[in-house]
């Protein structure tokens, strides 16, 4: 693998970039592995990387039905943050932010994590009280947070509508300075390249058609490229978790699949330096390095596996943006798309044993899986390698739905992420 660096880029530029090797191989699957991961999205690839790096497990395959990073990893709005209320969530998502902070250098792949900060606005006195409560919770959980008044919000996001007669006037907000955006594809590609370099086989266009059981234990998978046996199997198939769980006989998961839409405008010169979420408008926005406004909002309201958006939600989200930032009214929408997300009753993920021996699940990330990729991979690798929970993943075990120890962050953000 050619190392990526300014020097090598300079050298390759001079010789027509002919010396760059493959970012990852396209190997044929072996008949057995120490671990097989189903789904080469961000979480699956990160899991493979950390299995190899942290646990020395390199005889690992990641199986992907389509192309790597082609699910929600490549469809999200790229926001990375850990502005959560409960200590369990803060521990999980802040681990992720910390891993992201060093990820480009660690993977030797620029994932463009840009800590431009994220502002969540407050629009009434009760909102301000909730904002204060959240800032305090975040800081007590060891996460950076600032409580902003209206003028401070204005400095960070001058495009917002500050008219006093607007439907939801801005009173202030919460800032997480370390939050920001990353380049979503690069996260998948960076993990894929680094995992591949450590010996992991990433096998694309390889559909898992069934699981292989022996004495009640999952010992491998039937795939479109033949049977592959594994000491342990992990599934990271956001959007299709219920389908895989059914196939494996793990019963009905507490998950409903919904389409989540995202939008991008034509590129503009820089107009917005932070990520901004205005909860009463149900819309959030950031500006990508290319200049497009990347826009997101709430879920579609109809359970769906169709990876496309529908007009009513588009109207709500984009109208919300124009209400938030009326100067954007004439900016043109370039493209919109949708991904299918796993929605759990408490909007928190499920990580851990599936209920079937030998098979583990990493799912249920709802609309917030991208920001959790490094932590999801890190923790899931720990579980696959050791068979036990990491302290940070333990509260997110599927068993919480039986004990009632839900981690419902509904209060942490206007949009149920």
């Amino acid at each position, binding site marked *: 693998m050619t190392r990526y660096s300014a020097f090598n880029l300079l050298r390759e530029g001079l010789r027509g970039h002919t010396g760059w090797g493959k970012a990852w191989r396209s190997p044929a699957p072996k008949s057995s592995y120490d671990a097989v991961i189903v789904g080469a999205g961000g979480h699956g690839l990160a899991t493979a990387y950390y299995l190899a790096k942290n646990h020395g497990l390199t005889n690992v395959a990641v199986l992907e039905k389509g192309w790597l990073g082609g699910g929600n990893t490549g469809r999200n709005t790229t926001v990375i943050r850990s502005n959560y209320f409960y200590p369990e969530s803060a521990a999980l998502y802040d681990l992720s932010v910390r891993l992201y902070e060093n990820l480009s250098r660690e993977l030797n*792949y620029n994932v*463009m994590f840009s800590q431009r900060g994220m502002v969540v606005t407050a629009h009434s006195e009760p909102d301000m009280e909730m904002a204060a409560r959240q800032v305090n919770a975040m800081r007590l959980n060891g996460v950076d947070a600032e409580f902003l008044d209206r003028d401070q919000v204005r400095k960070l996001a001058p495009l917002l509508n500050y008219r006093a007669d607007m439907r939801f006037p801005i009173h202030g907000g919460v800032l997480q300075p370390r939050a920001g955006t990353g380049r979503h594809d690069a996260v998948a*590609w960076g993990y894929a390249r680094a995992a591949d370099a450590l010996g992991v086989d990433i096998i694309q266009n390889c559909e898992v058609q069934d699981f292989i059981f022996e004495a009640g234990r999952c010992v491998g998978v039937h795939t479109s490229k033949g049977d592959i046996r594994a000491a342990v199997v992990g599934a990271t198939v956001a959007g299709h978790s219920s389908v895989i769980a059914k196939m494996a006989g793990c019963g009905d998961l507490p998950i409903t699949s919904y389409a989540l839409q995202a939008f991008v405008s034509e590129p503009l010169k820089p107009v917005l330096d932070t990520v901004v979420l205005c909860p009463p*408008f149900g819309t959030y926005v950031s500006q990508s390095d290319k*200049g497009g406004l990347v826009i997101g909002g709430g879920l579609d309201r109809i359970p769906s596996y169709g990876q496309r958006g529908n007009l009513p939600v588009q109207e709500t989200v984009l*109208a919300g943006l124009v*209400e938030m930032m009326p100067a954007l009214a004439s900016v043109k929408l370039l493209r919109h798309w949708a991904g299918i997300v796993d929605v759990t009753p408490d909007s928190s993920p499920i990580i851990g044993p599936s209920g079937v021996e030998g098979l583990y699940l990493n799912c249920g990330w709802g609309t917030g899986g991208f920001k959790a990729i490094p932590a999801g991979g890190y923790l899931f690798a720990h579980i696959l390698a050791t068979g036990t929970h990491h302290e940070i993943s333990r509260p997110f075990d599927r068993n919480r739905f039986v004990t*009632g120890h839900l981690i419902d962050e509904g209060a942490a953000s206007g949009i149920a992420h």
Partner: protein
Amino acid sequence: MTSHRTSRVALIDRLQPLRFSFDGKEYQGYKGDTLASALLANGVRVMGRSFKYHRPRGPWGAWVDDPNAIMTVTLNGRTFPNCPATTTPLVEGMQARAVNAWPSAAFDIKSGLDVFHRWLSAGFYYKTFMWPNWHLFEPMIRKMAGLGDISRDVLKGYSADQVFDHCQVLVIGGGAAGLAAARAAAEAGKGVVLVDDHPVLGGGLHQMPEIEGIAPADWIAEQASAITSAGGRILTATTAFGVYDHGLVGLAENGPFGTAPRLHRMRAERIVLATGALDRPITFTGNDRPGVMSVDGACEYLARYGVLVGRRIALVSNNSLADAAEVMLKEAGAQLIRLNPHDGPLQALGGKQTKGISQGSQHHAVDTILASGGMTPLVHLWRHAGGKLDWCEIRQALLPGTAPDGMVAVGAVNGAFDLDVSLSEARTAGAGKTPGVSPTSYGLAALWPDPGSKGRQWIDFQHDVTLKDVELAARENYVSVEHLKRYTTLGMASDQGKTSNMAGLAAMAAVQGRPLPEVGTTTFRPPFVPVPLEMYHGHHGKQLWHPLKRLALEPQHRAAEAALGEYGGWLRPGWYGRGKAKNLIHQEVLTARTSAGIFDASPLGKIEVLGPDAEAFVNFIYYNTISTLKPGHIRYGFMLTEGGSVMDDGVIARLDQNRFVISCSSSHVDSVRTHLEAWRQDGNDPDRIFIHDLTQHWATITVAGPKARDILAALALDVDLPAQEFPHMTLRETRFDDTPLRIARVSFTGDLSYELSIRRTKAPALWDAVVKAGVALEAAPIGIEALSILRAEKGYIMVGKDTDGETMPHDLGFGIPRLKKPVAFIGDRSLHSDKANASNRKALVGLAVPTGDTLLPTGAHLVEDTPPRSLGYVTSSYDSPTLGHPIALGLVENGAARIGETVSVWHLGDIRKATICAPCAFDPEGERLNA
């Protein structure tokens, strides 16, 4: 006559010259021109710069397929970024500037970047800028990126209409096929709507000498007239930008420049797609030079605008459609040579102007190169709707295959590039039948990019993706089409790959030695062309964004100088009078404690549950036992979710054996009603229970305070008021002004209190009477801010403020039904989960501050000191005018057991102390209830 304008009959109005400027220089065009056609007529070739290398660019196409000429346009002081010059109609006084270029497109200071192109290959940024971190380099990169700059001012009057519409047959595309199909359908008696994105119908017909024996303009007019005569409608300048679930088509109808398009949400029983096809660029060295244009684009400039784009033209085409173009351009006065792209590698010569073209050793001095590598059908909408695509080897194109429900494709989009075939398909489809794929005489010789060949050959013009970038992506194993697209950004520019996608796929297929159809295609995503955000916004704004609910008594409150604000979706008085809010609110609290407060409680829920099974139903709905409630009595209780958490609190009154009134919180009425309906119909006999929400029909006026009884007495109602006759938590029905009046003795302040409910229309009379009677006793109207303090003094909760999504009733001191209620109720089992039984549950407590301390901030956390850990937080906090010191409520881990403990209170890094106490700070014995 400007230099490139011919006298050919065109669609411009030569009697209406228009003045405009581009990059600061003045020009003249005509009404009917686009910015691009007017500039070309003036001999301007360089209209933009590419995204990455800042290469000079002129228009490739004449319509939506142009990726190059993008401008920021100012008209009448209003500025619009990112206007494609090829689709922007020329208006008198327009000032256009090329985006991404300074000081002008012709002389751009960043053009030097092109020198470094070898280091700016696809994905170069993934390989560097990692040390020390990306954020150091990012601001510079951000400044370089982006196209137009927006004005920070809000455009006045820029507002979109949005309409719902429907028709039997929607024909998309107003060229020959679309017109013929629409006419056939209209004449067959169907309700037809024909849409076309050009301001003038006809598609490519204007290029033709004649059609069916008459001049194109006459033929078009005849079809249009036949369509409208048969009752059809025609929408021009209207783009079908997307097809959504259940066949909804989004149409953007463009008005004059500078106005927001109108959104039509169009439903059609059947859709005839006649969107045509586009010329595909040829990949050769220097193919991005200004002066390299599409064959069809050049013909459109001539036919629609009378502009001959070049005088000495090299026409490079691999198909027979160029024959007609050759005739047309020559007739207009061009010298033209034909080159066969298969005869050898091509190279465009020149810099900002095309100077020639070479093929092998042959050089030709030309000022314009027109290229067509074949036709690419515009199948976007077909794919939005879920239609399949089939590869056609003869046409070397993806054509509509298996159709989506209710859609049919005709004409060039269906591969019918011959006019006769196209018309025949269109008439078949218009008559309601489905034509197949027809034979073609298109004479195409497959032509695709040649990997490994020399020179810089552009695949995506706007994003500066070259053939070498595709080769690099393949070398690095980014071989799936989605990886190719994302790694190189191919097809992601503002033309959405209309010119580049096919060449990109073909290049990847060629690099890998695979057949093109095996490579597959990326997803076609709406919108077909970029559309302003305002189009989606339209009426969804201002006060129509979550409209406020209004009180029947709003005029009375306004007259009393109420400070109206939003509380739980209602516009309600926060307090009354002018002056410092805090003083006014405190005075209202004191008035309520010494005399009485008169409060408009109309938003309180008034949901009736009726029927023979009503008792069992409410007993199941409520946490508390309701079945033992006697008629005329009232009980306080909780509704829970099945997860056991508190959904709402409030009182329920029993009017008679089979009739209850649920008085839920103001902001929960809609959700409670839905909750009740869902349980009524699912799991119960819906013929024995009825839910009737009368919240909006009744107004409620609360009189609360020691003088409340005297005020009611002054109303001279036919009801016994003494406490023995009318005790707390009972209800009486009487009449006021000959109208039924319901009086409930309930209290949210801890004082003697009556809630008077009456028909909405009678509320003003009742209010006036109560206020008149009250004023005599020094009572006064109070707002919701005072009420919030009054209830907090008593430790009464507001659900959602003093509870969160985890709070269960036993956290609020209401633990008995959980242990004792003998029958099933919603949420019951969840109250015995591991979590419900946990010892560290957060419970409601009061919080007292040391004497002289200021009030605690709401949202502050109670913490264990080392390490700092949150135990809970302050939910409500006020200066109590009644008690003369601050009070607060909070949710704290194991709160009931901590009463008397002093804890640290943490707020934004500051720490202070508070003592945990019982929630009720005022009149804990409840003696004032019967005062």
